[in-house]
C-alpha cells in the first residue's frame, strides 16, 4: 500500500537513466540524446503558438529592459496643457490627465511588471523547490507540517490577502512582491514534493543512499535535476498570473505608489476618463494582453514538447 495516494497517481518518471543494457554504447547514447534535442527544437519551431509566445516574451523583456532608451519622454514629466491628448505623432499613445506621455509610461510600467514577475517567480520557485523536496524526501512529520502550511496559504484568496496586508502596512512595491511570493510558493512546493515522492524509492536514489550520500547531496545532485523541468514550465505559465496580480493591485491603488507608472495604474487612470479619452484604456490594456498571451503560449508549447506524459497522448 502506498503511503500517500498522490504517489500512485503521479506515475513513474521517464527519467531514470541508471542501469544501461550491455549492448548500448556511450556514443549511441550521445547520438540519441542529440537527435532527441534536434527533434524537440524542430517541434518547437513548427509550433506557431510557441514561436509567437517566444517573440512576445522577448519583446516584453526587451521593451522593459531598454525602456530608458526607447521611451520618448520622461514618464513622470507633467505637461498639463497637453492633457488627455489623443494619439498624435508627438504622443503615439496619447497623454494622461496630467499630460504625461502614455507610451513612455507603458514602457516604464513594463519594468515594474518585469521586476515583480522576475523576482517574484524566481524567489517563489527556488523556495518552493527546496521546501517541496524537503517535504517529499524528509520525515513524515515534516511532510505533514509543511503540507499543512502550504494548504493554509493556498486557502487564502490572493486579492483578499493583499487587501488585508496593504490595509495594515500601506501600499508599496515590496508589499506586492511579498504577496506574490508568499502565495506562489505552495504551488511550486506541491509539484516538487510529488515529483520527489515518486523518486524517493527508485533504485538510483537507494543506491546513492547505500553509498552514504548526505541528504543535501542527494537532493541537489540527483533529485533536483529530475524535478526542476516541469517546475520551470509551470513558472513560465505563472508569469502572466503574477503580472496581472500586480496590475490588479495597482488598479485598486494598493500596488505601486504614485507617480510610478504601472500597467494597473494606467488602466485605472484610463478607466476614470473612459468617456473622455477611451484610448488610454486600450493603450494600457494591450501590453497586458500581449504579455499574458506570450507567456501562456510559450509555457503551453514547452509543456507539450517536454512533458513525456503529454507526448504519449498525441
Amino acid at each position, binding site marked *: 500500500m502506498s503511503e500517500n495516494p498522490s504517489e500512485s497517481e503521479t506515475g513513474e518518471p521517464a527519467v531514470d537513466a541508471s542501469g544501461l543494457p550491455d549492448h548500448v554504447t556511450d556514443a549511441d547514447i550521445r547520438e540519441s540524446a542529440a537527435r532527441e534535442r534536434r527533434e524537440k527544437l524542430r517541434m518547437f519551431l513548427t509550433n506557431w503558438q510557441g514561436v509567437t509566445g517566444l517573440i512576445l516574451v522577448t519583446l516584453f523583456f526587451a521593451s522593459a529592459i531598454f525602456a530608458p532608451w526607447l521611451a520618448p519622454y520622461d514618464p*513622470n514629466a*507633467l505637461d*498639463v*496643457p497637453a*492633457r488627455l491628448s489623443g494619439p498624435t505623432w508627438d504622443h503615439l499613445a496619447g497623454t494622461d*490627465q*496630467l*499630460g504625461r506621455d502614455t507610451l513612455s509610461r507603458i514602457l516604464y510600467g513594463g519594468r515594474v511588471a518585469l521586476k515583480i514577475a522576475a523576482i517574484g517567480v524566481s524567489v517563489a520557485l527556488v523556495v518552493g523547490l527546496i521546501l517541496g523536496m524537503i517535504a517529499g524526501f524528509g520525515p513524515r512529520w515534516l511532510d505533514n507540517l509543511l503540507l499543512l502550511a502550504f494548504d493554509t496559504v493556498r486557502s487564502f484568496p490572493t486579492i483578499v490577502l493583499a487587501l488585508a496586508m496593504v*490595509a495594515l502596512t*500601506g*501600499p508599496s512595491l515590496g508589499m506586492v512582491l511579498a504577496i506574490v511570493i508568499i502565495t506562489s510558493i505552495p504551488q511550486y512546493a506541491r509539484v516538487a514534493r510529488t515529483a520527489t515522492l515518486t523518486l524517493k524509492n527508485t533504485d538510483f536514489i537507494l543506491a546513492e543512499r547505500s553509498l552514504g550520500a548526505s541528504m543535501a547531496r542527494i537532493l541537489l545532485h540527483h533529485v533536483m535535476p529530475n524535478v526542476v523541468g516541469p517546475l520551470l514550465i509551470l513558472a513560465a505559465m505563472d508569469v502572466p498570473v503574477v503580472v496581472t496580480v500586480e496590475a490588479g493591485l495597482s488598479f485598486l*491603488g494598493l500596488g505601486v*505608489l*504614485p*507617480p510610478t507608472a504601472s500597467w494597473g495604474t494606467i488602466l485605472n*487612470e484610463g*478607466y*476614470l*476618463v473612459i*468617456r*473622455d479619452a477611451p484610448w488610454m484604456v486600450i493603450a494600457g490594456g494591450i501590453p497586458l494582453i500581449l504579455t499574458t498571451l506570450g507567456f501562456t503560449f510559450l509555457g503551453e508549447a514547452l509543456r507539450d514538447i517536454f512533458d513525456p506524459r503529454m507526448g504519449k497522448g498525441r
Partner: protein
Amino acid sequence: MKQTGLSRRGFLGTTAALGALGLTPGWTTAAFAQTGGTLRLRIDGDNDVLDPGFMTGGTEIEAQKQCLPFLAQYARDGETFTWEPSYFVTKLEQRDATHIDFELAEGLVWSNGYGPVLASDVKFSYERMKDSDWSGYFEALDHVEVTGDRTGTIVLGKPFAPFIMITLCHGPGAVLSEKAMADVGDRFTTQFPAVCGPYTYEATPGQRAVFTANPEWTGPKPAFDRVECNVITEVKAAELAFEAGELDCTEVGADTLARYTKNMPDGTAIAVAGELQYMWMGMNTEHPKLQDIRVRKAIQHAVDVDTILQGAYSGTTAKSHGIICPGLTGQRDSAGYGYDPAKARDLLAEAGVSGLQLTLRTLNNQERMLAAQIIQANLMQVGITVKVLPLDSGPFWEMGQESKGDTWQDLELWLMRFGTTPDPYEATQWFTSDQVGVWNWERWTDEEYDRLYEEGINETDPQKRHDIYVRMQEIMENTGAYVWINHEPEAFVHSTEIGVNAAPSGELNYRRFTKA
C-alpha cells in the same frame, strides 16, 4: 384545418420586429412616462445612523428631510441662499436677538400611533442635541420654552445670527417624537421610530433606500410617489448609470462636469448646489521637519495651484484664498502668497534645509491623487522629495485625531477638504485652540484667532463680520501651514424632465423635486 403553431421563420420574424420596436426612440419615451411616478437617485453609501444627534451627515440628512419635521428650510434667491418657514410651521419669527417664536401647523401626526406633533417634541429634540455629536450646532441654544400644545419659543443663550440658517434648516434641526424616542431607548440607527413627512423610509443594506408615499401625510403631495435611492459608491459608476438612463439625477465629478458643460447631451441639464467645500494642503507645524516656519512658507510658494485646478479639476472649480467659501461673508479675493519657486528655494536655503523628504497623505480618489502628483512634481522642483500615500476614508479621517491612534505625530503634509454651511462661523470653528488634535491637525494655536471666533459669532453687523473673518484667515495663512487650493462645486446632472432641489451644502431634498 389551418395550423396556428410557431414556425422557425415566424419566430425569427416576430423577434426581429419586436427588437426593432424596442429600438424606436418613441417607444422608450412612452415607457419612461409610465414610470414617471418614481424618482431614481443615487446615494453613495448606506445610511447607517439616521439619528440627527449621531449621524455622519450627507445622505442621512437627505433621509431626515423626507421623514421628519423641520421648522425652516432653505430658499434660493438667485445665487444666494436664505431661509423660509417650512410647511410644518404656521409661524417662525425672530422676536429679538435671542428669541425665536414658532407655531406648529395643525394636523401633523406621527406614524405608528404616536399622536400629533407637539411643541414639547421640539423642546425634547433640540435640548437633546446639546449632548450629541452635533452639539456644536446648538452651542448658542439655551432652552426651548413650551407655551402651548403647538407653540413655543427657542431661547438662545447669546445672540447668534446664523442660528436659523445653519441649525434649523440643516439636518441637526430635525424634530423627533419624544414618546417614540422613549420607546426605543433614546437612540435609533437605521429605522425611524416615528415619521411625519411625505414619505416613509425603508432600506435594503448595500442595495437601495426606498421612500414611499406616507398614507398618514395630509400636507402638500410631493411630485413623485416613490423615490428610489440606489447605493452606488463610485461617482464614475453613477455617471454611467445616469447616461444609461437608469438614474434621473446624480452627482458628477470634475472632468465629467467639464465635458457636459462643453457639450450638453439632449434632455440633460446641470444643477449646481453651491461651492461650500474648501480644500487645502495642510502641514503639521509641530513635526520636526516642518517646525521652521520658513520651510512651510517655502512650500506655500512652491505649489502651483493653477496647474492643480486645470490638471486635476479640468478648470471647473474656483481658486481658494482661505476657508470661507464663495458667496459668504468674509471671503477673501486673494492670498498673501503666490506661486514662486525661486522664492521657495531662497526660503529653504535661508532655513538651511536641503534634501527634505516628506510624506503627503491623501484620500484615494481620482482628483486628489492627481492633485497630489502635481504637488509632488512642484516640490521636486525646489528640492523636496514627496512620497504620496493614498489612504481609504477610514484611516484618512482618523489620522490627525489624537483619540484615534498615534498617526497624528507622523503627519507631515495632507490634502484635506471640509464642507460647510452658508455661514462663515461654521468653517472657522475647526481651527480654534481646543480643536488641536481633533480637527486642527495643523496643531497651531493663536489667542487672537480664538477671541475673533467668539466675536464673529456674536457680531451682527455684516461689514464687521467680514473684517473679522478675513483677519482670521490671515492668521491661518501666516502660520505657513496652509496652501489654499479650491472650492469644489456640488454639481448634479439631471434629466430635463425633473427639477432638482439641493441644499447649499449639497444634500438633495427629494420632496421638493419637481416634474417638468
